[in-house]
């Protein structure tokens, strides 16, 4: 970089630069050197203004690369900005103090050691990594780290943090994507119908090509159109404009992501006009990737948007009128145009070409650039050789050469149809225009402008109006008369069919991102990958950061010609979102991960609970510091067994089943029978699916003839509820089911002293064992709170589950804690409950069962009704009864007190084979020994059978099968 320069750079033009604000100088750094620019500059425009033409090193060969498209359609300007890798320097605007670094180099950016790769490039043919490095298994192990280190572009900062990103929803009647002339016209027309119109443009300033392209010698056409179209948009009161906003995809039912700044918008529009324009395509010739060689539109962007002189002396390669317009642009800024090289044998005489001729510029008709030259360092173009075109892709010997520091390529376009294609539009190659053209566009989507093959400015505006009109009509707006259909015969003059000129010495880049040259594609085809999709995968053409935006068309043409296929029959390779890369942060946003807390959540925290996730809920695992986990659990267990303790059971699923058919409904949904269950009683429920697999359990409490309150597991209740409703949509029983899980908070007071605690709080229910026995259920009040009381026995002690409306949860908790002070009541958590229930031999569905456990395997035939005609899973359960049982769930203990407690999921082994696993095991505080449940071979399921358990370190220990439950087998304690 030169040390002395004017502010804003030596290449800065006076009086130009629609996007820069010369009153606001900005300094940033590139590769450690300070660079001066203006507000509104992109990194690339500021670097070009300061003569820094090399902006990146190429992916494979580490060749110097500079501006190619100036609109982010290539990987030539990828830079690293802090923790953001692969940032487009031709899109990212500069900011004071911005630290910009080059990417993908070894040693220094200016003399990158990675350049050696190109010296051996002859030995690295297309797909070379498939062809070697596998001589031995160890070969690739040796080479892979080297290849990996060479691959990749930007770097990750391991210490970076997820910054702030957020999301917002947007709605519109008509969304117009693209703020060029077509988009402006469409928005203005759509607005006439009165609906909400949203005009989204990725540039900072509306107008698109009108801001930089030239349609006539004077430049007035663009100005006039710009003024008229902008005024119409401004005049409409119902057009919202979003500039600097990129639409990255177009998903089903017009669902559109829009990225602007650190906000990710999701837009739903009734109708959409896609006016995304087209992407200028490079020509393929030797050294076409040198800095200083760029698309004609890129040079125009530099000149008109940023006031940057792209070069002092230019050669323009063209095949349309735009090349002549660019010649005039260059002349107007005082640059020289060495020559215009026109691929067309007989270029039409147009106003612009005549103006170029008047300026005395030599035009080489029917010619192409045979190669571009550099000073051996590939850092900038210094000249070109021009040769006559002898046939499609063939050149005669060069007839002229020119010195230059700028080469413009203006040989044609390809529609930026990515959004339309994502949405299911069909495009086909037109042999008239040599571009892909829309054939079929889904309802609610409309295309306008050059994406739809309209290039002439008047036609573009007309096309925009027609699309805007149609979109407004689709959105339900009141529209006027239908504008006439638009077709632009001029489109046929825009794009050359074959701007591809291989050179004997190679170096003609088709894909700049991936460093793929003409021969790489030809050789890939010769290797048998003779289909566009296969070639893409084999050669990686189009797989780079710009996803084929400047390479796909050339690749399709080359494949078609090499394989003798009709281009018209070929499609572009599938377009996948996003259109331009989206940050992870944008998609993640602020990361919402919902969680549920019970009404007593804060009480648990105050009591020092360690919380654990239970499905979407948080539950207390145990109360006390982590270091004292075992002690805490033991004390909680002892409190339940000996005194009284309480646990928050609010997360337990609750379903109110009401109606004349309530009992019949439960009969069908669960394995037991409920028709004869007395009011005021509860009964265990076990649910199986149609395949007879156990899916849930709980209890059904009958509060009246027509009302059951059914519990379900915390993580299972939603599925249970949904399944109930789906079945009844078919059975049409007279029953109503409501999921009241979150409507109730609950505590379970358990322990031999629980009755005396509860008695202090509950006067309207006779709590005596006779009046309110085990498995009884009652409604009444507890501490003045309306409550449902359940005498259930999960933990195996006298206990009462108290379910109250959610809002009373904390008050209930506090009341019980206070009432229990004389008895020393304390809370217990999920861990202690698991121990207690295991001592009691109760299963936990999904811990002691798995995705295939049936009632026979779980040893629960007692829960299967034998007399009712049907329950879900019944038939499958019957069928499985006839089949040999492969495993059975049993209780076991370890007789040798020296043996360690097995972990859950340690295996049960028989004869060297896996026959089952331990599902639950604990060193029981109440029993003073290890107890657990395990699946064992049915032959070993009888009490006192010996089983072999493989524990940590592969050690085998012996367990003994024990009849369940382990604790209080007569059930006296829970029934007292």
């Amino acid at each position: 970089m030169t040390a002395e320069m004017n502010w804003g750079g030596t290449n800065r033009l006076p009086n130009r630069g629609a996007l820069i604000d010369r009153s606001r100088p900005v300094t940033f750094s590139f590769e450690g050197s300070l660079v001066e620019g203006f507000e509104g500059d992109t990194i690339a425009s500021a670097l070009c203004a300061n003569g820094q033409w090399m902006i990146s090193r190429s992916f494979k060969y580490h060749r110097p690369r500079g501006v190619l498209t100036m609109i982010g359609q290539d990987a030539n300007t990828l830079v690293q900005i802090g923790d953001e890798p692969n940032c487009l320097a031709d899109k990212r605007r500069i900011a004071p103090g911005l630290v910009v670094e080059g990417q993908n180099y070894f040693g220094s950016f200016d003399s990158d050691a990675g350049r050696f790769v190109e010296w051996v490039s002859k030995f690295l043919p297309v797909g070379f990594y498939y062809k070697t490095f596998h001589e031995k298994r160890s070969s690739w192990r040796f080479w892979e780290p080297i290849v990996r280190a060479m691959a990749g572009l930007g770097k990750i900062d391991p210490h970076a943090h997820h910054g702030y990103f957020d999301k917002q929803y947007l709605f519109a009647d008509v969304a117009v994507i693209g703020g060029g002339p077509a988009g402006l016209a469409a928005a203005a027309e759509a607005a006439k119908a009165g609906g909400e119109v949203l005009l989204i443009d990725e540039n900072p300033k509306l107008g698109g090509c009108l801001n930089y392209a030239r349609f006539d010698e004077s430049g007035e056409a663009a100005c006039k159109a710009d003024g008229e179209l902008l005024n119409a948009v401004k005049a409409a009161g119902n057009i919202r404009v979003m500039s600097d906003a990129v639409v990255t995809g177009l998903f089903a039912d017009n669902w559109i992501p829009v990225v602007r700044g650190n906000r990710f918008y999701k837009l739903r529009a009734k109708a959409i006009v896609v006016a995304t324009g087209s992407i200028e395509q490079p020509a393929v010739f030797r050294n076409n990737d040198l800095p200083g060689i760029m698309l004609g539109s890129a040079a125009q962007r530099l000149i008109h948007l940023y006031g940057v002189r792209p070069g002092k002396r230019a050669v323009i390669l063209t095949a349309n009128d735009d090349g002549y317009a660019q010649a005039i642009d260059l002349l107007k800024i005082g640059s020289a145009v060495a020559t215009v090289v026109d691929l067309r044998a007989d270029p039409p005489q147009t106003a612009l070409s005549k103006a170029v001729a008047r300026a005395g510029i030599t035009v080489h008709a029917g010619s192409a650039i045979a190669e571009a030259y550099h000073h051996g360092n590939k850092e900038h173009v210094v000249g070109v050789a021009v040769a006559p075109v002898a046939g499609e892709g063939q050149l005669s010997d060069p007839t002229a050469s020119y010195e230059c520091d700028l080469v413009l390529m203006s040989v044609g376009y390809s529609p930026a149809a990515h959004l339309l294609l994502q949405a299911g539009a069909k495009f086909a190659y037109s042999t008239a225009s040599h571009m892909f053209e829309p054939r079929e566009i889904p309802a609610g989507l409309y295309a306008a402008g050059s994406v739809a093959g309209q290039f002439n400015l008047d036609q573009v505006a007309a096309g925009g109006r027609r699309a805007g009109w149609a979109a407004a009509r689709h959105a339900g707006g009141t529209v006027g008369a239908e504008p006439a259909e638009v077709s632009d015969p001029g489109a046929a003059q825009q794009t050359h069919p074959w701007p591809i000129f291989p050179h004997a010495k190679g170096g003609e880049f088709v894909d700049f991102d991936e460093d793929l040259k003409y021969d790489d594609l030809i050789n890939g085809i010769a290797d048998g990958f003779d289909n566009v999709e296969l070639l893409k995968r084999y050669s990686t053409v189009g797989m780079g950061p710009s996803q084929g935006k400047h390479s796909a068309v050339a690749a399709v043409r080359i494949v078609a010609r090499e394989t003798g296929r009709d281009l018209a029959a070929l499609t572009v390779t599938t377009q996948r979102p996003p259109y331009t890369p989206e940050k992870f942060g944008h998609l993640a946003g602020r990361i919402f991960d919902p969680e549920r807390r019970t009404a007593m959540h804060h009480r648990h925290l105050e009591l020092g609970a360690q919380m654990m996730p239970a499905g979407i809920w948080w539950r207390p695992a145990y109360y006390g510091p982590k270091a004292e986990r075992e002690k805490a659990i033991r004390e909680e267990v002892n409190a339940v067994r000996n005194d009284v303790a309480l646990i928050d059971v609010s997360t337990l699923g609750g379903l109110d089943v009401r109606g004349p058919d309530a009992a019949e409904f439960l009969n069908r949904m669960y394995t037991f029978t409920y028709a004869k269950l007395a009011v005021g009683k509860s009964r265990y429920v076990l649910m199986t699916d149609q395949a007879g697999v156990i899916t849930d359990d709980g209890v059904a409490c009958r509060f009246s003839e027509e009302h059951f309150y059914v519990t379900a597991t915390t993580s299972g209740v939603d599925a249970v509820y949904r399944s109930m409703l789906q079945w009844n949509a078919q059975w049409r029983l007279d029953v109503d089911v409501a999921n009241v899980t979150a409507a109730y908070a609950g505590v379970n007071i358990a322990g031999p002293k629980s009755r005396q605690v509860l008695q202090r709080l509950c006067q309207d229910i006779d709590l005596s064992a006779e009046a309110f026995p085990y498995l009884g259920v009652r409604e009444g009040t507890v501490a003045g709170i309306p409550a449902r009381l359940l005498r259930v026995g999960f933990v195996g002690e006298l206990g009462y589950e108290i379910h109250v409306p959610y809002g009373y949860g904390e008050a209930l908790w506090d009341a019980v804690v206070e009432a229990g002070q004389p008895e020393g009541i304390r809370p217990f958590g999920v861990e202690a409950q698991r121990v207690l229930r295991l001592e009691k031999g109760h299963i936990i569905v999904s811990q002691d069962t798995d995705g295939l456990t049936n009632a026979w395997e779980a040893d629960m035939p007692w829960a299967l009704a034998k007399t009712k005609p049907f329950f879900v899973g019944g038939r499958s359960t019957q069928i499985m009864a006839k089949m040999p049982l492969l495993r059975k769930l049993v209780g076991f203990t370890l007789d040798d007190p020296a043996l360690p407690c097995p972990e859950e999921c340690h295996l049960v082994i028989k004869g060297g084979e896996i026959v089952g696993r331990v599902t639950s095991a604990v060193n029981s505080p109440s029993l003073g020994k290890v107890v657990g449940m395990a699946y064992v071979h049915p032959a070993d399921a009888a009490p006192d059978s010996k089983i072999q358990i493989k524990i940590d370190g592969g050690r085998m220990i012996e367990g003994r099968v024990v009849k369940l439950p382990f604790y209080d087998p007569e059930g006296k304690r829970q029934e007292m």
Partner: protein
Amino acid sequence: MKIMNCPLNGPRNISEFVWGGEVKPMPDETKLSDREWAEYVFLENNTAGVVREWWCHVPTSYWFIAERNTITDEIVKTYPASEVFKSRVDFAGAKP
């Protein structure tokens, strides 16, 4: 994000719905062999084309039926389950 027209709630984002699979009316289990029953339980039509299937609007727990083209993802129409399941189902021996 697709939009699905819930017969109860109108058009909503499809993320509010849960798919329940093809509508596969349950045959009379007393008339089927074990193998035929297993076929009913496990085998799927998995049709590529327009399929009549269960959907549930989760916030309102409302099950309904949609006809959807599984190739294009086009939702052809949606309607209440009662249009297919018109009357109460009883099993032999069950008390009404």
